[in-house]
């Protein structure tokens, strides 16, 4: 019951956040330099009449708050409007893109955790060794190297020199898609995996230095049983940071999708912002915000399952 109430409160908070976010993004785009009508017409000799008629079509001649209200009332009834740039329904545009970005981020997430967690544990266990130092150094490089730079290097080595992977495109069959997404996912995962390594290593190290581990060892528990103890505890910070990391991943897709010419939400967002395609930018930011909020909620529920102290205190 308490849990349901907590979740309910969280959902209300999320809805408020989304509303504030939508207003903020709308305002920023409204204030950003550039003119949608001009973008549509290009640098052509446009008559004032045609500029006026385009502004009227997209409601750009209305006061700011009216424009926002028009968008909001549409969005609340499920009508996200029409893309200024392509004339397509925003829901259609999102529908075409969201799958790819989701596949890309999930793949990158799996790679990052699959590599980062074991590497972090290993580094913590061999604390101070050459292996630890190597892993930590690699992680620093991973955090520091921008995703698109890693992407270009991967493209050059694996797609051009070795010819193992394609240079661009999305693939037709599921297996083909996986093959096309492998390099972008690795590029996207590089920075994330490095973060996961650092978080995991710190968490495991802290647990290893705790009294209960020393005590458990002293009691003669098998190394496997001891590991189970400290790994469960170390999992909490790793899990809670996962929500944040997901947000990090979505940010990374903008550059990685551009580098690999992938038609996902990231590249869509980048192009729509420069074009001042407000309906699309609004929709993409909200979708991403919803995903991140839901991920954060899921993480908190997971923490609840893992950590009895939190379970007693309830979800905040």
């Amino acid at each position, binding site marked *: 019951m308490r849990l349901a109430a907590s979740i309910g409160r969280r959902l209300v908070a999320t809805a408020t956040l989304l509303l504030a976010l939508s207003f903020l993004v709308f305002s920023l785009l409204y204030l950003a330099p*550039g003119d949608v009508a001009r*973008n549509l017409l*290009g*640098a052509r000799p446009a008559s004032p009449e045609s500029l006026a008629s385009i502004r009227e079509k997209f409601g750009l001649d209305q006061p700011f708050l009216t424009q926002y209200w028009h968008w909001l009332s549409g969005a609340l009834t499920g009508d996200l409007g029409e893309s200024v*740039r*392509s004339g397509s329904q925003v829901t259609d545009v999102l529908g075409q893109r969201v799958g790819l970005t989701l596949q890309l981020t999930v793949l990158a997430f799996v790679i990052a955790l699959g590599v980062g967690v074991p590497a972090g544990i290993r580094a913590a266990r061999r604390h101070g060794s050459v292996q630890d130092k190597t892993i930590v150094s690699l992680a620093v490089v991973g955090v520091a190297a921008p995703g*698109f730079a890693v992407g270009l290097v991967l493209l050059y080595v694996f797609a051009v020199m070795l*010819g193992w992977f394609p240079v661009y495109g999305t693939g037709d069959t599921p297996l083909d898609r996986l093959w096309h997404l492998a390099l972008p996912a690795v590029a996207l995962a590089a920075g994330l995996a490095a973060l996961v390594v650092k978080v995991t290593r710190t968490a495991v190290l802290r647990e290893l230095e705790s009294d209960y581990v020393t005590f458990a060892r002293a009691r003669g528990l098998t190394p496997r049983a001891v590991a189970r103890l400290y790994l469960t505890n170390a999992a909490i910070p790793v899990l809670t940071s996962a929500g944040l990391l997901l947000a990090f991943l979505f940010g990374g897709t903008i550059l990685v999708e551009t580098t690999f010419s992938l038609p996902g939400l990231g590249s869509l967002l980048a*192009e729509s912002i420069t074009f001042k395609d407000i309906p699309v930018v609004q929709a993409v930011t909200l979708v991403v915000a919803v995903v991140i909020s839901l991920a954060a909620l899921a993480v908190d529920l997971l923490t609840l399952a893992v950590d009895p102290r939190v379970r007693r205190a309830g979800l905040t």
Partner: protein
Amino acid sequence: MSTPPSHLLIVPDLGQLSRRSLLKGLLVGGATMGALAACAPSSSSPTASGSAGVGADTGAEIDLVTIALPGSLSSLDVNTEAGIFNYYVAAIAQEGLLQVEPDGTLTPALAKEWKRVDASTYVFTLRTDAKFADGTPVTVDDVLYSIEKARDPKASPGTSWAWAGVDTVTQTGADEITIALSAPNVAFEWNPTAAGALFVTSKAFFEKVGTLGTAQSLILGSGPYKATAFQPDSYAEFERVDTWWGGVPKVKKVRFEFISDENARLLARRSGDVDLAFSVPIGQLDQWKSVAGTRIETASDRSWAGILFDVTVAPFDDQHVRTAIALACNRKDIVDGVLAGNGEVALGLPAPAVLATAVPESDARTLLGTIPQYDFDLDAAKAELAKSSVPGGFTVEWTYPNSGPQLGRAAQVIAADLAKIGITVNVVEQPLEQWLASIGDGVHGLSYMWYFPTTGDPGELVGYLLGEGNPGKFTDDTVAAKLTAANAETDPATRVAAIIAANAAAAQKVAQVPLWWGVSSTAVDKSLGLTDYGSFFFVGPWGSRLYAAA
């Protein structure tokens, strides 16, 4: 005088190239700079086609040609999105009443013949054997409907401007359409083409799909290819049809891959994934040439790059200031150095290749030679500035679009020279959209103009930059009179002379500073031939002009 409606100005890739500079120079940056320094200026005429050394047509069919597009399309419908690459893609599937040959000549397309009754009245007789790719015949109704749609600014933000001077469009015979203009304009013929502002589609098809050019609806035209798949910002695929009146093309399938990043495009070519690439960046030319089996075709892209003054913004309202800036532009060094010879010093507004659609190119060059020039002379520039309202100099911001890094480098060269006479120029890169909005905004007195026409109307750029409502707010009675005369003049040579006279009168007052006429480079696999490659190649039904080279 009304603005001539036939002004076709397409900035390459509205919002599509904007990401291109993102990764610029990362992998190949060093090599790029090296290439710039090492490449000697090209001495060949920029308007000549560079197709020497291509093997003869083997007559064989080609299964697939993959094309790398430097940017991405969000719609296949040019009425909706009218970047230059939207034109290139749509041109293989859709037609207008007339079409543009690679050399810029207008020839029949859906109209088998046409007549200019006078400078305001045009009569088109439709061919009766034309069919859409779905097999249905192209009717007068379809054409009228497509024109009506193109004229509506809400439905067609990309093309409606070109129809602004049209008074009526009526059916005047079984297969005849008459277009009456509200003011004389002999260049109107460029508009009802797929290089201009008409993309004829089936009325029934449009009524069925509602919105054209999306991933679901695609486009339907009467050209040599039909659209079979489109993923916005990813790729578009076309297959040849046997319904085109001009015959069946040799290439069975054409696939456009939208690869915004210039380095990824080069990598795609290296891995052998693409057969043809539009608009190879100047800084990467040497790297493209070094890819085995690649040749570079060059032709004038008819573009004009230059300085635009807003003559209502101080201190650019002072002709001495404008003259001082013109004298401080070392155009030859910019073309030789920044462009590595891939361009030509612009003597005026219309490029020789554009004038050549009306008069022989040698005559065009002679005429361009009559326009007053301001050759690089810093002492003269300093003396001119001393006579101005700001003898001690001033500070100004100069923006350029991120899709044209060469514009930025040229601006830096000019800024360095202007600094020597006391003018401080802050060169600022901006996203294409932001730059567009800054032109003629009444704040920026000094701007870049970078103009890519798709048509070959000799009066286009002059009309835009000097005609009524021009972005520099320049007014001059002599110029206006010459432009009005040019719009009504039906004799091509007299018309070109009037256009050049208008240009010369404006140059006398330094309305703009022409910097260069551009050249575009297309990378092509050696096994692929392009028949009659020229300036206007990609805005006609070019898919039918590809062949297998020996």
